[in-house]
């Protein structure tokens, strides 16, 4: 798709930042989130979870729980479909353990009772006999020769011979001759890095209300990033036809990738079917940490060669990611994104997907990319430091541009990395003086973005207003963006448009709100649906004027004759056409269904100032600037919010957040008091610069913005902290104990 669809006269609504349509509901408590659903006769569900990191399930006795007054149903793995293969099989195994509990918190049974208290009491009455097995939670330990084997059948054909069975997938890509490249370099640095697993940290826990009858017809209300995938997965796991399960997405209190799959939803459905009553399950915070999907922890080796003038001669990376007890750690994205910002003649990247006794990892904003960027950009920073080169100049010298052969293979289309670097160099932040004890770091970051299956429907009302049904849950302001794009096409005020997240019975399949795809793909579909409606509006006007359909065009919310030959008619406003539409051919609506394939990739550059207290190891981020290519910012305020959110989560990942497992393989910090996410008082005002290099694959030039913003922070902060501390930090998070240890080791 080319930009020729774009209005030559520019935008009237797009690029403005009107009030968000969900604002009043959210500040007054009227918005209905996952836990806000109720049904007559509703039961409360609770889940029995393994206290062991790795154990064979010898026996489950549910009789005492079933005998407790108020208990209406107990389910175990036997209440789900047998024999599922592939990803559905992994999801089922994660949702309800079969022969083995594979991590601390793994579900082994569930109960439904007339109150939450009774359900929790009943959980304690379910007797589970375990045979405890050796466990492993560290990625390097899980790959070692003598590591406990979780499952010896998970490895696919990509894994070279000789690896431990816990290595389940392997990636190898690149081009050129890295050895020759390293030989050309004036300086080669080789270093190793680790990052710990972090959780997306969404404030709203997983919650759902399910109803499934003996006739195989069900209803599900849940907090999710994608209710069609929830529908498809749940139907498969409980053995009903997909179309017999209607799923409605609630308002969502954060997802960031963690709500792209199911955990409690199939359990609630199975309990409901058994009890013949609706069942609601709301996870506790501890359950969210123990049993949903954090990101992978990593172990990485990076080697980069550079000439004295800053030219990178070769780059090599090994990325080992543990993804919990099932295949799927996003190591291929670590590998493919790691060196993408740079034009490299010689590059080689290897990825390992490793299973361990931890919960199944889930996506987290640009999955796999932030960790890889941390390692690569740290080495580039060190090279710049040792060669006394400006870190932005070096990145500009090596930057990927349109036509550059990407580190992952193909040539880039039009991209905006250079523009973000030039904006960074020109930004007052970059030249501002630093206080004693402070350091400055910069980093670039890359993410692919995604299109995905999309279906949008738009209906006009008699009074000239418009309602739009989209299928992508609003996790980042998409209702406002859709309304702005429709306003642009229809020529009616933003306030006259209401956007609703439709349920699965209302539209065709919609892919999940992930991959930074919503403003791109649902936006493109909204534009096309609006154009579809505009065509019908023009046709009605033509019929009324008695002129050919193609002699009418649409401008500023009115049908107009296309010239003197078409006739002398006053412009006919949208509301005038819709007022009589029931008597002039029927309701007017617009539709669009497609899988758009033009999601443009995106780059960002971040600048960070940090200071370190050498006595306590406490770090403070004192100034932060995000510069990112948005293609075209539909609602700039929301775009800035995405940039700031990515930076804030990155600060937590870099400085404090980590899953801490004890020697017994149990998670030690499963509440927010012990798992330290940054709060407002931890953060400086995060400044933003929106760069707009249009994506040729979208009518308005939109690129996704939701994920790229979390790619550079880990490295940018690590570079700033390393500069402030005078020692290279190679292990995230850079918590006070790690900083103190590094300072002590430095001597």
């Amino acid at each position: 798709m080319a930009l020729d669809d774009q209005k030559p006269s520019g935008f009237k609504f797009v690029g403005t930042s009107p009030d968000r349509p969900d604002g009043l509901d959210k500040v007054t408590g009227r918005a209905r989130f996952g836990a806000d659903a109720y049904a007559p006769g509703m039961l409360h569900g609770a889940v029995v979870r393994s206290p062991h990191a790795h154990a064979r399930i010898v026996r489950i006795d549910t009789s005492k729980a079933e005998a407790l007054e108020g208990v209406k149903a107990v389910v175990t793995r036997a209440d789900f479909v047998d024999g599922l293969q592939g990803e559905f099989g992994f999801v089922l195994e994660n949702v309800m353990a079969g022969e083995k509990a594979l991590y601390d918190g793994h579900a082994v049974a569930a109960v439904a009772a007339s109150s939450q208290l009774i359900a929790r009491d009943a959980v304690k009455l379910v007797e589970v006999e375990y045979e405890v097995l050796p466990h492993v939670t560290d990625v390097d330990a899980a790959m070692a020769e003598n590591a406990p084997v979780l499952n010896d059948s998970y490895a696919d054909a990509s894994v070279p011979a000789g690896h431990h069975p816990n290595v389940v997938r392997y990636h190898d890509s690149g081009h050129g001759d890295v050895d020759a490249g390293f030989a050309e370099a004036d300086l080669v640095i080789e270093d190793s890095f680790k990052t710990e697993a972090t959780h997306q940290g969404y404030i709203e826990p997983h919650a759902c209300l399910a109803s499934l009858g003996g006739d195989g017809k069900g209803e599900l209300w849940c907090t999710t990033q994608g209710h069609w995938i929830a529908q498809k997965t749940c139907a498969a796991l409980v053995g009903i036809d997909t179309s017999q399960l209607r799923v409605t997405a609630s308002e969502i209190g954060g997802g960031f990738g963690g709500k792209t799959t199911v955990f409690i939803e199939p359990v609630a459905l199975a309990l409901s079917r058994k009890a013949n009553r609706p069942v609601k399950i709301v996870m506790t915070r501890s359950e969210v940490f123990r049993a949903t999907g954090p990101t992978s922890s990593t172990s990485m080796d990076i080697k980069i060669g550079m000439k004295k003038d800053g030219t990178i001669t070769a780059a090599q990376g090994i990325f080992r990611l543990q993804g919990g007890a099932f295949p799927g750690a996003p190591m291929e994205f670590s590998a493919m994104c790691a060196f993408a910002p740079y034009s490299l003649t010689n590059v080689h990247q290897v990825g390992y997907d490793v299973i361990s006794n931890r919960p199944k990892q889930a996506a987290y904003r640009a999955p796999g990319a932030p960790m890889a960027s941390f390692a690569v950009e740290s080495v580039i920073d060190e090279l710049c430091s040792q060669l006394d080169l400006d870190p932005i100049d070096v990145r500009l010298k090596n930057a990927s541009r349109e036509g550059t052969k990407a580190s992952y293979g193909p040539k880039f289309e039009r991209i905006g990395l250079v523009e973000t670097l030039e904006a960074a160099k020109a930004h007052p932040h970059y030249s501002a003086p630093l206080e004693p004890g402070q350091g400055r770091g910069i980093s670039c970051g890359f993410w692919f973005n995604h299109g995905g299956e999309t279906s949008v429907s738009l209906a006009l009302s008699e009074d000239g207003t418009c309602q739009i049904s989209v299928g992508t849950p609003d996790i980042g302001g998409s209702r406002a963006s859709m309304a702005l794009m429709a306003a642009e096409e229809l020529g009616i005020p933003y306030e006259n448009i209401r956007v609703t997240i439709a349920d699965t019975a209302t539209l065709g399949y919609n892919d999940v709100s992930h991959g930074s795809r919503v403003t791109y793909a649902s936006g493109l579909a909204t534009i096309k649906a609006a154009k579809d409606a505009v065509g019908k509006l023009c046709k009605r006007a033509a019929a009324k004027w008695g002129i050919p359909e193609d002699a009418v065009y649409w401008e500023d919310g009115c049908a107009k004759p296309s010239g003197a030959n078409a006739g002398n008619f006053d412009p006919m406003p949208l509301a005038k056409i819709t007022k009589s539409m029931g008597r002039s051919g029927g309701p007017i609506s617009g539709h669009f269904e497609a899988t758009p394939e033009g999601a443009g990739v995106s780059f960002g550059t971040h600048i960070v100032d940090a200071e370190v207290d050498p006595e306590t190891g406490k770090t403070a981020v004192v100034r932060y600037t995000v510069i990112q290519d948005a293609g075209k910012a539909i609602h700039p305020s929301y775009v800035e919010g995405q940039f700031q959110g990515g930076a804030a989560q990155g600060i937590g990942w870099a400085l404090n957040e980590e899953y801490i497992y004890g020697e017994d393989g149990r998670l030690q910090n499963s509440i927010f008091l012990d798992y330290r996410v940054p709060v407002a008082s931890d953060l400086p005002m995060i400044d933003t610069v929106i760069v707009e290099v249009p994506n040729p694959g979208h009518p308005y030039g939109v690129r996704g913005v939701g994920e790229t913003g979390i790619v550079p922070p880990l490295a940018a902060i690590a570079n700033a902290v390393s500069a402030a501390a005078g020692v290279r930090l190679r292990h995230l998070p850079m918590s006070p104990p790690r900083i103190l240890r590094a300072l002590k080791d430095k001597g």
Partner: protein
Amino acid sequence: MVKVHLWSGLRTLTGGLECVEVEASTTGQLLAALSLSYPELEPVIESGVSIAIDGRIIATSLTEPVSAENEIFLMQRLKGG
């Protein structure tokens, strides 16, 4: 014939080749031809791949046109958070 560049990890499944040629005019035909000519690639393709055509990444579509003029790369399936 269309030239398809593979990521290097797939060489073990194509007898050491990192670039292969198949007869195809759409992305769907290309994937089918790859599976036919190199059966060991079939599980990889079945588990999900994307295709870059002159730098434009086609995440899933089987109907995009391809020709000998295009630079084509097989990539691992894109997804996100």
